[in-house]
């Protein structure tokens, strides 16, 4: 993954507007965060392969970045994004990593469903 170039990311978001997509949205503290120095209870959520279609997507901020997608009836939002890449099969992967390279957020869009199951 590369550090986010906001102009390039904006173009990638524009290219995917008004298309039927699969969304993977996730934030994570890690399952063991309650055992960390600050005893922060785990706070983890993910939704994978949710169908989404947005009218307008935008990247904002000066890094870490925010991305918002305005859908027909609502919003998809993420704050804390540091890295992005487009895969060979056309998925746009955005992520937020902490200073030690651990994932804090994943925000991903793909026309094809994200991999699931044993295969």
């Amino acid at each position, binding site marked *: *993954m590369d550090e986010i170039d906001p102009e390039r990311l904006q173009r990638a978001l524009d290219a995917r507007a008004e298309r039927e997509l699969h969304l*993977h949205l*996730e934030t*994570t503290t*890690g*399952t*063991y*965060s309650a*055992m*960390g*120095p600050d005893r922060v209870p785990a706070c*983890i959520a*993910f939704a*994978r392969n949710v169908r989404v279609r947005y009218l307008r997507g935008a990247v904002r901020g000066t890094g870490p970045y925010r991305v918002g997608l305005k859908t027909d009836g609502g919003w998809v939002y993420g704050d804390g994004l540091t*890295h992005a*890449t487009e*895969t060979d099969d056309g*998925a746009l*992967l955005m*992520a937020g*990593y902490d200073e*030690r*390279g*651990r*994932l*804090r957020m*994943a925000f*991903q869009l793909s026309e094809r469903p*994200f*991999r*699931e*199951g*044993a*295969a």
Partner: protein
Amino acid sequence: MSAAAASDGTRRARETGPEAVAGDAAKLPSPNVHGPVARRHLLVVLPHPDDESFAAGGTIAMHADAGVPVTYLCGTHGDMGRNMGTPFFAHRESLRDVREAELRAACRILGCAPRLMGLRDKTVEFEDPDVLAARIAGEIRSAGADLVITFHPGRAVHPDHDAMGEATVRAVRSLSEAERPTVWTVAVGDREALDAELGPPDVVVDVRAFGARKLDALRAHASQTTALFARMEEEGDDAEALRAQMERAGTVEAFRTWAA
């Protein structure tokens, strides 16, 4: 086990081995098992790539070296972990293949055959436990396993660990007496508290001859353990506790026999 995930040194040290607690490494239980126990097949049933090395790497290598077939039935690909390597080299979608390759390398080092069930990391507790148990029972039967190692249900910290242990003991319960293997469980957490609650482990395997291989297998899980090994080289109490725990991990592995 994703032991490298927690960030406090003392607590981190606690996760470097089952029942590892910083500061009491001196109180090693005396080993009472010095050679292979399974005769036909050892089946290890845990949810994540790296659980096998942390929980039973020495015991796996001991059996493999004695010519006993060993299979690691691994529930998930560890594909929802947050450790992506240090410095990071993986992302959410590539982590699955990264961890599968790491698992295959670790299994080559230990001498066991990996079998991946393909469940999604973090979701094991939401699967139908009877369906999971039936799959595991099928694996026990087809392998002809006479010894199974899994997590101690309800005493393994991570929800996937607890759920995999629960499904495995259900699987064993569903088998006829003739098919039923011995089950050893791995409890995770504060050793003194676990001993007080469950009694001390009745199986303590002497893994000294396999300690180096166990560490090599842990290193093979690079996306998860590079940071851990780096911290071991640091100065201070945290690193010292970590080194003590690694030394313990290369000396004994403790289990409790599950009464099916």
